[in-house]
């Protein structure tokens, strides 16, 4: 078997396996798997509204995935995407609400604010890692909590004791009547183009620029990179800053598109953590992230239709969706299996 066939076979087999095991779970608990999967399918692609909402759900996943993937390529494990996303969400919502500017300045400014907020949240663990060798996993996890509660406190003080900020001005919104009419009043917004543009940016940065080359070298082998005369510390900080900026933009999707404001949260959004899986599913490549985010986003959104149309309780649905993702993520096992199989044949 050639490498290319294996590359195609692995995701296909893993999705089929995931669906099969999910079907068994539904059967055992007394629900109709065919109706369930039909509902899932319709929930994702059923009509223009569903498609619109699915794409809307994919946009922040792409950016969260990019953030994790980018750090990974530099050998850093950014678990702080969640926190960076939350501060980005807040920054975009605040700038969108507080200023009155023409659209062509306001919208980019709000996006920039989100990216900057995320970048700052990435800068801190980056600096600590580069200068004091504090492990970024620990720092970023803790930064998540700091972000969550600081943002909650800021919301409270800015809204004078309330639990949410006012809606953003029309001029900062990513929403458009055109897209929402096209998709039968879904909350689809232009964020998906921002996300796809960032995919391009990441590819360009990593594969077409000196900075990207250095970042990757540091990721491959820190010592070799240093020996080759690269500034490892600078690159580590740089990687975290860029990664944080991607994550911050992910928050802007929610602030300027989906919700149009920010409310105090009791817990994490989960998008940032899912971003880790998105990045790994996509093998930390820009195009792969699109695939991973599409899978995650559509399953996440489409799953809502399973209780709606097939009467399957949400708990079972969560298990089924987790199983599908689990099998896709364990593609590595299937790959190893396939390779062994083909090697045996060659040996004969």
């Amino acid at each position, binding site marked *: 078997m050639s490498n290319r066939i294996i590359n195609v076979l692995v995701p296909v087999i893993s999705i089929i396996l995931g669906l099969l095991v999910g079907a068994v779970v539904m059967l055992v608990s007394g629900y109709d798997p065919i109706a369930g999967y039909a509902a899932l399918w319709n929930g994702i692609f059923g009509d223009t509204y569903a498609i619109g909402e699915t794409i809307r759900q994919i946009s922040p996943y792409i950016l969260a995935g990019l953030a994790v993937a980018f750090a990974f390529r530099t050998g850093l494990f950014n678990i702080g995407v969640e926190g960076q996303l939350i501060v980005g969400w807040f920054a975009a919502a605040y700038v969108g609400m507080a200023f009155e500017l023409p659209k062509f300045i306001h919208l980019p400014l709000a996006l920039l604010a989100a990216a900057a907020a995320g970048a700052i949240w990435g800068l801190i663990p980056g600096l600590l890692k580069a200068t004091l060798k504090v492990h970024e996993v620990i720092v970023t996890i803790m930064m998540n909590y700091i972000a969550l509660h600081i943002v909650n406190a800021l919301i409270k003080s800015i809204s004078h004791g309330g639990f949410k900020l006012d809606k953003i001005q029309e001029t900062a919104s990513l929403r458009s009547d055109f897209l929402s009419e096209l998709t039968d009043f879904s909350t689809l917004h232009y964020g998906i183009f921002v996300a796809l543009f960032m995919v391009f940016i990441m590819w360009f940065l990593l594969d077409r620029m000196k900075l990207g080359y250095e970042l990757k070298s540091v990721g491959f082998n820190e010592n070799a990179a240093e020996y080759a005369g690269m500034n490892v510390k600078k690159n580590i900080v740089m990687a975290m800053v860029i990664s944080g900026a991607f994550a911050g933009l992910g928050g802007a999707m929610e602030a300027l598109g989906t919700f149009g404001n920010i409310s105090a949260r009791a817990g994490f959004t989960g998008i940032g953590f899912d971003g880790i*899986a998105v990045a790994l599913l996509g093998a930390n490549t820009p195009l792969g992230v699109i695939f991973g985010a599409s899978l995650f986003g559509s399953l996440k959104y489409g799953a809502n239709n399973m209780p709606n149309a097939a009467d399957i309780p949400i708990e079972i649905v969560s298990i089924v969706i987790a199983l599908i993702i689990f099998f896709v993520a364990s593609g590595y096992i299937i790959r190893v299996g396939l390779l062994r199989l083909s090697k045996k044949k060659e040996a004969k």
Partner: protein
Amino acid sequence: MSKRRFGLALSLVLAAGTVLGACGSDKDNSKDSGKGSTSDGGKASEFSVAMVTDVGGIDDKSFNQSAWKGIQEFGEENSLKKGNGGFDYLQSQSDADYTTNLNALARRDFNLVFGVGFLMEDAIDSIASQQKDTEFAIIDGEVDQPNVASILFKEQEGAYLAGVAAALMTKSDKIGFVGGMEIPVIERFEVGFLEGVKAVKPDLKVDVQYTGAFDKAELGKAAANRMYSEGVDIIFHAAGGTGNGVFSEAKERKSADKDAYVWVIGVDSDQYDEGQVGDDNVTLTSMLKRVDNAVNDVAKLAKEGKFPGGETKVYGLHDDGVALADSRGAIPEDVLSEIDKYAKDIADGKVEVPGEKK
């Protein structure tokens, strides 16, 4: 490679955490009549009603459950079946699901769709302006749209009575309050409770702690553990699912020592079952927020064509919106009659319970 595999494992754990986190309380409450009769039961000509829960789900033993109970009762009274054209609910997994769930129900042609919880204000606002033929109602929030009815409660009045009950029943003169998120609705509980305690024992200081979440039982348990350890004997919780942790802490103490004097005052629904431990029960009483009555009431009005669109209805002690649950002997008769006196004063308007912090 090893780092990558570590990453994979870690991400799976975290991803599973966020996926599974949503289904915290999965105890099978087979009270919901859904299981047998699946969709497409009723006729389209009937008046149909549905609701969207927040992330708590209809078995949260409190707020959503109460709303669902009201809808089920309405369904029974009008011999509707669960499913299209009858009554139904959708559970939200995250706040991004509010709009889509509301929209999904409006698209299934339900006549009246309830959004349960203040967090749904924005979602109802935007969906109501798109789906003008559907009537919406929001519980605990206010939305100014001609096809939206806003339902509020005077939680402070019920909490006041809970405070009176706690102050009359405490032996250690230490009382606790465990809140969910620090938002206006929950603050009404707190303010009313403190007022009630003060009305009986002006010098008693109530230990107030907010956990910041409605779905984290472990935080409720930790808060209750601290309070009971410091000598508090009665805790009133207004924290949804987080409050289940308060119950489990109290039950642990009760089962370890049958004579332990620990009580919980439940919230929203009658939480008597929640406090059962062997032959004992730690539930002193529950402050009922009759979301079910309000839901049923608004659904009836809408069916009769008198839907209070664009209006805000406030349910208090006077109109059975809030009340104390049957204490089933936990509170002696003479104390109960004293509580009744306070209740009467509020219902008659002699005592005005403030709803906001000073």
